């Protein structure tokens, strides 16, 4: 099928109206996509399978963490909503890596799962341009030019649309697995999506099947936390959202603790003895699972030398007794799960409320998408989140925001917004997926980012607010607060560089107190702050011209000064990187006719149609020599063009 005419003959249907954009799925990706489209003035239809499960956190009830915290800050700096919602629903906040250099600080917050979902629903429902509807999309329509023009739901509602953003999460053709028990179902017993995947395949989109999993939830009343190591929260963590930062938001002072425990010898014994009942090892599971986030049985099998594994015990919310066992994901049968849980310290009498399961689902091969997240197979179709082979709420939200923005840009007749690897983790994420592809659920890690001293959580606003404003997602109020912050940072850095402290007893005393060496010739404030053992705050007594500044400003100033040398090194690397990125490649280049390109490079380039020389260089099978050949080709085309205009 795939077009209106055939559908009218075969299916029972009705015309449900016209929208600019339909967003399919209201998880973390879908909510951001719909929100972005609506704010950019488009009439937006947001379809969900379950109206009470918006922005669900079916796995770990937390947002942020290493690399992921940076993503949330970036989403916020561009005008997305995840950070704002997460600040409001947090029951515990922590700045990871606080004992390390400020360049690798990562914010993380434990969510009240129900509250997060409720808040998001209410926020979306209040949006002027969004129609939130419960319905299962089963079919896409496209015209003779392979451009999308409509969708149909299971109940027969057909919508005329100019663009579709699919954010299907783990729901397409999903099945959950516990040992021998296989259920055709989405996460948490929710109904799955059937048929949409097939329709995408008919449109020529290459599909894959992935697998992921989630651990058991136990009732806190039946758990003894006194034998566990407590992980308290830190109420002084700055908020995720720059909007909340502007309004002086602080996390709640009454932080709810998490706990950590270790698996025991008994856990290993139970698992080893029951491995023959694991669907992973008996071959029931066909989908490719992640190396990140492996099941507990996988951990024991792959690392036989490791006698124990750490488990985190985390609350699911304030109004529930459910506890989440992070690190204890499994697809072993339910009866084995009971024994496994009871082998853990403090959990010997624990009562399981939800059993763990593995879940398999359909997703696309993301190399069939462009960097704008639009499909190369079907014009006007965008995809975001787990459907693109990623894993994680933050990864999904980041793609949802970009897909939403780019669907809107397309309808508004503007150029797509593409962030590169030196601008944002979002750029790294999308470039990795689209350029290299993935064979397992892809998780963001800081090691994937080449320029991470520059891509920090504290400067996401400095990197991206201008872009968010240009697109139209940053309010005037937010923007002027941003400008004021930027000015304050620059002024303070200039002041620290130019304020010179002569040697004095007072200064020596301050230096000695920090465990630093005294300076005989004096030093500028910036020079002193550059010393690893000295912090901005330590110099208060000797810095007479100091003004009261916001904590975020001080943080940014300190990082910029401490890392000055490394930032310069990174800027140099970014310059080299940008030189290739700025050489654009038209999709019409006849790669098969370019003499000098190797055969493999020709076919890969013709198939992927990279947008720049830089992107081409990251495709596997394209060598540096192929890039040199392309450079000469581009130059010769440019000269030909000039000669034509001159002649």
């Amino acid at each position: 099928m795939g077009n209106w005419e055939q559908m009218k003959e075969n299916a029972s249907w009705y015309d449900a109206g016209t929208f600019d954009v339909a967003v399919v799925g209201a998880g973390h990706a879908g909510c951001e996509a719909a929100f972005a489209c609506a704010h950019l003035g488009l009439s937006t239809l947001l379809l969900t399978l379950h109206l009470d499960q918006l922005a669900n956190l079916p796995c770990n009830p937390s947002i942020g963490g290493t690399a992921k915290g940076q993503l949330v800050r970036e989403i916020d700096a561009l005008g997305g909503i995840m950070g704002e919602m997460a600040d409001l629903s947090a029951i515990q906040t922590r700045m990871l890596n606080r004992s390390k250099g400020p360049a690798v600080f990562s914010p993380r917050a434990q969510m009240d799962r129900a509250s997060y979902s409720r808040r998001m629903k209410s926020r979306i429902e209040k949006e002027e341009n969004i129609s939130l509807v419960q319905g299962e999309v089963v079919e896409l329509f496209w015209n003779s030019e392979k451009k999308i023009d409509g969708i149909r739901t299971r109940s027969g509602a057909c919508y005329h649309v100019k663009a579709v953003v699919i954010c299907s999460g783990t729901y397409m053709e999903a099945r959950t697995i516990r040992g021998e028990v296989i259920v055709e179902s989405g996460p948490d017993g929710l109904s799955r999506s059937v048929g949409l995947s097939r329709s995408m395949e008919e449109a020529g989109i290459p599909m894959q099947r992935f697998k992921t999993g989630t651990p058991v939830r136990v009732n806190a009343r039946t758990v003894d936390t006194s034998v566990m190591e407590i992980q308290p929260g830190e109420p002084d963590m700055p908020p995720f959202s720059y909007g909340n930062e502007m309004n002086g938001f602080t996390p709640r002072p009454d932080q709810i603790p998490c706990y950590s425990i270790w698996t025991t010898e008994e856990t290993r014994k139970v698992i080893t003895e029951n491995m023959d009942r694991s669907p992973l090892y008996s071959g029931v599971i066909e989908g490719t699972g992640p190396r990140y986030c492996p099941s507990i049985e996988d951990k024991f099998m792959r690392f036989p030398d490791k006698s124990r594994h750490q488990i985190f015990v985390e609350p699911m919310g304030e109004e529930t007794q459910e506890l989440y066992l992070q690190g204890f994901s499994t697809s072993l049968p339910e009866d084995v799960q009971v024994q496994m849980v009871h082998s853990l310290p403090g959990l010997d009498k624990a009562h399981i409320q939800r059993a763990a399961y593995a879940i398999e689902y359909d997703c696309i091969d993301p190399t069939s998408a462009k960097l704008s997240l639009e499909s190369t197979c079907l014009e006007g179709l965008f995809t975001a989140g787990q459907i693109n082979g990623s894993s994680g709420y933050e990864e999904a939200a980041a793609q949802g925001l970009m897909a939403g923005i780019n669907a809107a840009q397309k309808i508004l007749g503007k150029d797509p917004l593409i962030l590169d690897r030196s601008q944002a983790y979002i750029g790294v994420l999308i470039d990795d997926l689209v350029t290299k592809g993935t064979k397992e659920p892809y998780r963001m890690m800081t090691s994937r980012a080449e320029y991470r001293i520059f891509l920090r959580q504290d400067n996401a606003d400095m990197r991206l607010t201008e872009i968010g404003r240009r697109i139209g997602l940053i309010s005037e109020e937010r923007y002027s607060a941003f400008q004021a912050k930027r000015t304050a940072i620059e002024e303070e850095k200039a002041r620290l560089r130019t304020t010179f402290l002569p040697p004095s007893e007072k200064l020596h005393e301050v230096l000695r107190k920090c465990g630093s060496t005294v300076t005989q010739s004096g030093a500028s404030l910036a020079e002193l702050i550059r010393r690893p053992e000295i912090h901005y705050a330590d110099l208060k007594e000797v810095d007479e011209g100091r003004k009261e500044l916001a904590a975020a400003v001080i943080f940014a100033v300190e990082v910029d000064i401490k890392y000055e040398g490394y930032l310069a090194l990174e800027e140099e690397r970014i310059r080299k990187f940008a030189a290739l990125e700025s050489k654009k490649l038209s999709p019409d280049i006849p790669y098969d006719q370019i003499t000098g390109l190797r055969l493999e490079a020709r076919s890969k380039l013709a198939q992927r149609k990279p947008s720049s020389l830089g992107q081409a260089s990251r495709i596997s099978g394209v060598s540096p020599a192929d890039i040199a050949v392309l450079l000469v080709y581009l130059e010769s085309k440019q000269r030909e063009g000039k000669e034509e205009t001159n002649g």
Partner: protein
Amino acid sequence: MDKPYCACATPPGVSGIAVIRMSGEGSAAVADKVFHIRRANGDVRTVSDMPGYTVAYGILFDPSSEKTVDEVMVTRFCAPHSYTGEESVEISCHGGLTVRQEILRVLLENGARMAEPGEFTKKAFLAGKIDLSQAEAVMDVIAADSELALRAAQSQLSGSLSGKIRQACDQLYEAMAVFEMWIDEPDDEDAKIALTKNTEKLILARERMAALLDSYRQGRILSERMKIVICGIPNSGKSSLLNCLSGYDRAIVTDVPGTTRDTLEVQTTMGGIPVKIIDTAGIRKTDDVVEAIGVDRASGAILEADIVLWLVSWEEQDRTSEETMIDQVMSLPSDTKIGLLISKSDTADEKEINDKKESILSKIREREGLREPDLVASISSRNGDGIEKVEEYVKKTYESLGSSTSQGVLLTNQRHFERLRSALSKLDQCIDSCKMGESLEAPSLILRTALEDLGEITGDSVSDTLVDMIFSRFCVGK
């Protein structure tokens, strides 16, 4: 600012003189560090003083040891009046392989970098020095150059060099994975333990790399020679040919088949071309364990050869072994040249020799998918008949390899050398930074740049290799 880049502009092989070209802003400044002018006009004391299109005579020396490398002539070109349109220097030196390699090494150690395949031509084109109509030819030069470099790299990477670089890289990736875990997984206890030994690990890897670089410098690895492999069934006269070609008795020659049980190597020149001749054990089925190992090595050597000289004695009777040889040799890829040599010609008449040639050639043609030899000749190692023909063929082959390129095989090696050197100095910085107790995201950034250098030798994508290393070494995830 990009560094000036250099490479040998004359074809490889032994010749009277050779020209090394260096181009890019700062070329004269690099030359000034290593060139001492003996005779020039007027007030000219340095290369930077020289006007464009002038020549100076002097000494090229290594500033680190103050040793003279060669007496050379230096020609100066000022931008934009040069081949590439950039400031350039051309050094005319003596034609020996070692001299050229030494000069390149000295230039690299004093601020130049090795040219990319086809880079001079590419720059000339981009600067508008080469006509648009030649764009395709330019692309072909780049492709051919890189193809050659790639082949040279592959032949090396299958050898001990690659093993050593790989080992050093793996150690560095392991250390990097520990840094990454420290940042990405703050709670992981294995990573915490590994971290305490990480600086030690880095120092160990550093020592390995330094040793590798030293061996490079001494030219042990950097002996770029064309590989000629002599093969044939037992007692076809392989060792006699080796002795004949190398001019002295390297191999024990007896008429007991199977005397050569291992591969033997001789480095010599043939027609002025530096070559490595490899004599192999006779290929046949054998129950003798030691001989069997020799036979395996022989088969391996054949696969890596530039030229295979396949010897068939005119009196040969072992039909089965002969047919095995035909299948093995004549199915080699077409870029390996094959010479079919009928040996022991001094003991036979012309007809007997021709009969043997024809019988082998017809057997080759009978079989599907086999190619014909590139050279067919008869030789006698005893009286030297036909040996000249073989030498000429070797020279022709070498020149045909070198003709499409200005740098050839040399380039790959010198590039490896340069990247290794750069990686080593970064590794030093990284270790210093660890020892000084800097927060580890700083040394990890430096280490990444070192891995990026090495990646240009091994072809690793740093992020991907790193992520794989993390997953194989640590149990990560929720």
